[in-house]
């Protein structure tokens, strides 16, 4: 069974995450939850497969430091935030978050993202896809026009089927395209164990070649 820990200072959010996890198939066990990141470091949260981390925005700014330490300890962190601006999203990915979910996407994507994180499979929800597709920073990875197209259509749409129909592709190709982009992002910027694992796994599975990176 997948185990996870929720770091969020909002009781209703925690209640929501626990409710979704209880209904998930296969079920996900929420082993610890709390308002402070220490729940992810102390037993039983220290052993959880996945950390769902609210960025806890306050006047001190996003908790990038907490994210960094968790990532450096090899934890799979799903950043789950009310915030949806591109800079924050891409920053978290650069630090080495497994994925970034806005709270509005939680109902549709949180359980799937936790499952993917537990098995080290890339997961790119629509908001993250939009951030990738409109990334204009200098050190962004090089994407093919097709990849950018898929990213943006996935951002606009509600399902990969819709993207596939619209672009005359198979759903499998849409998914692998998104995964390839995610791996390319894992290959740039700050080094982190989780990012390296994602790249290694993708190379192993033949999802991407070293030339493409």
């Amino acid at each position, binding site marked *: 069974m997948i185990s996870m820990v929720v770091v969020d200072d*909002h009781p209703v959010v925690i209640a929501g995450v626990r409710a979704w996890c209880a209904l998930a198939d296969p079920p996900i066990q929420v082993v610890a939850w709390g308002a402070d990141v220490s729940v992810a470091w102390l037993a039983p949260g220290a052993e959880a497969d996945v950390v769902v981390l609210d960025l806890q925005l306050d006047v001190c700014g996003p908790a990038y430091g*907490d994210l960094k330490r968790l990532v450096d300890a090899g934890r799979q962190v799903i950043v789950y935030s009310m915030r949806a601006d591109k800079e924050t999203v891409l920053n978290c990915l650069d630090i080495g978050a497994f994925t970034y979910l806005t709270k509005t996407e939680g109902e549709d994507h949180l359980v799937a993202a936790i499952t993917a994180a537990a098995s080290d499979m890339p997961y790119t929800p629509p908001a993250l896809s939009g951030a990738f597709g*409109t990334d204009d920073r200098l050190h962004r990875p090089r994407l093919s026009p097709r990849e950018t197209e898929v990213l943006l259509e996935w951002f606009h749409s509600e399902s990969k089927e819709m993207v596939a129909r619209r672009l005359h592709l198979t759903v499998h190709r849409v998914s692998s395209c998104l995964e390839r982009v995610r791996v390319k992002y894992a290959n740039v910027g700050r080094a982190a164990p989780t990012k390296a694992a994602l790249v290694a796994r993708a190379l192993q599975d033949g999802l991407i070649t070293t030339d493409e990176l």
Partner: protein
Amino acid sequence: MPAASQADVDGRRPPMGAVEQSLIREGLRYALALRLIVVALSSTASLLLTEAPRQGTTVAIVVGLNGWNLCYRRGMLRGLPRRWVPADVAVMCALCLTQLWTVRSDPRGGGTWVLVAMAITLVTYAWQLPGPALAAATAPIIAAHYLGTMIADPGGWLVNETVEVWTAAEVALSWALYRFVRRSARAADRIVERGKEMRHAAAVAAARRADEREYLAALHDTASATLLMIGNGVVRQREPWLGEQARRDLREIGRSDAAQRGELDLIELLREVSRPITAGGHSPLRVSWRTPDSLALPAIDAVSLSRAAREALTNVVRHAGVDHAEIRVRRDAAAVTVEVVDEGSGFDPARVAPGRYGVTRSLRERMARRGGTAHIVSSPGLGTTVTLSCPLPVPDVAGDERLIGASFQRGLRRAVVVVTLAILLFLDLPHLLAGQEAYTHVGVQYAAWAGLLVATLVAAVAAWRDRPLGTARWWLLALVLACSVVATVTVRPEYRLGPTHWSEGDAGWPIVLIMLDSRVAVFAAVLAAQYLLTFAQAAAEGQAALSIAGVVNATWLVLAFQLAIAMIAAVLRGLAASSARVLRAAEQVRTAEEVARQLHRDRERRYADLAATTVPLLEGLADGRLDPGAASVRLECAAEAARMRRLLAQDTTAPDPLAQELRACIELAERNGVSVSFAEYGARPELPPPVRRRLTEPAIAAFATARGKARLTVAGTGDAVTVSVIATCSAPPELPDGDGVHRSTMLDGDRWWIQAVFSPVSGPVKGGGEAVGWRETA
């Protein structure tokens, strides 16, 4: 205040800047002191060194005059020029008319103490009176002096028209110098004012943005999240903690004065964050407080410190094994320090593995973000002390100070250039031309004069270009001293120190110009060296044109003026620093008031936006009237969460017409019960109205017939903009492409997916023209 009344006398520019005001005040103070000292020294020296025709009367007059000068100084500083100046003119006229008792006709006298007193009085009038009043005061005194000499020494040596003309010229030069400095004060005022306005606007805008961010972040994490999760249906029934959260959310929304002036009370915040820990269920912690009653800090510093303190307290509960901790807060000029002290088990900081997550690192990082520090002192068995400190902001006045100082310096340098050139050309050159018989080598005299002129011109060019002299200063100084020496050597001994010995004293003027930005001591030393050099040369030959008293009086006349300029320069430098401080303090007060006003208005506006819909919903959840499990409540919460998110996403500082038009569409849809999820990414070019209309049309059409949930997204990539709608609605009407906007639709089950893409270089354009995009229709 003298400054105010001085402004009245001047009375032409009512709104006077702070720098100019302080210049007038300081200028007056300095001018009065100079007059007092020069007259006192000169009159006493003459009294001791020479004998007056009526010694007794003269003593009385000298004492009376110096007493009057004291009274006059006090009266002027109190700001009563209308009463004191006419009286002073009368006193000076009387002094000049009574020369038959006080001075003796002596060709070797060089000048009389009455002449010195008159000259310094008139020269300093230039700093006290506006132009017309100065002229009105100067004319009778000079006339009285001329008349006085005629009475005292009819047709004799004392009667000398050139002395009166030169005195008038000196007054004019002094007045010109003062105007120059005044003008630079005004310039400094203008520059500082502009800088102040810019800083002021920036500070207000920054405070508003910071407050907005803080408020939005708080709302995001509280009310908006609550409503979103209820809308998602995760709370099935009424729960006590939900009511509690809703009440907290309401407090957060209504927080209208918590961050007034961008400040928070640190002590209150500390108590707030420690409450859950001290009241914690299984292991309550007692906290003793050694803090002031309240301590207002910039909000961000207060929050940083209180969060860090919370972390430290949590650590005490977890690891220290004690039920008591102490919090100490103190503030000094530079920083605020919070200490969290326990007498628990402690630990050995050296044995915490560097890679391991530790409270130490977290605290250090948190405080470093605010430019502060976190120190942890602990050892096993001896407890732990966590010291958090945050620096207090220090106002930066250096920039203004430099600005004002530079402006003054420029004005003064240029004024001295004018004075020096005037003296060389209109005083020394005539003496030189008229006194050929006094020199052993006339050619050398001309060369020395030319040398001084060259030195002056070099300094003048530097002054006009606003360049410092740098090392060239010392070469120029050497040139001037050399000229002074050779000019003295080639004067016949019996003419030395007399009027034809033009370089005596006047060689000091280029030195004043060259040394203007040095410290007063250096300046005075160099100037004195020049005079002593000349006197030593004269003394070595034994003979001189003047008696000792005559030398003292003649030297005083010029030297006092020259030293005065050194003091003006010093006063102006000090003035620049104090003016900058005064200005900055006033500005901070004004900015703080403005920020408070703006923040209050912003918060009221935001509250008004939420008051009608969000607040009643949260109130219903708080008091249990609304059942979060009911479908209608969920729907309402979902819609409200979406509305709030949009409201919060609005950037009030940058108008974005496309986003505004789309938001209007969404609000319309929500009124019809459609829940719209909205997301946008990427930078967008500025779009002309026809393009915006074509981009928003699909959304308007779809929302008109939509049911249930809909998705609206906007993406900007380079120059292209895509607006995409997915909704369960009737078939979208056929709309022709145009203005660079291309539309495409797709049906997936009962969901229509409609996209409008604007790309400026492609796509058919209405009217069959070339595909040049919006340029044509802009």
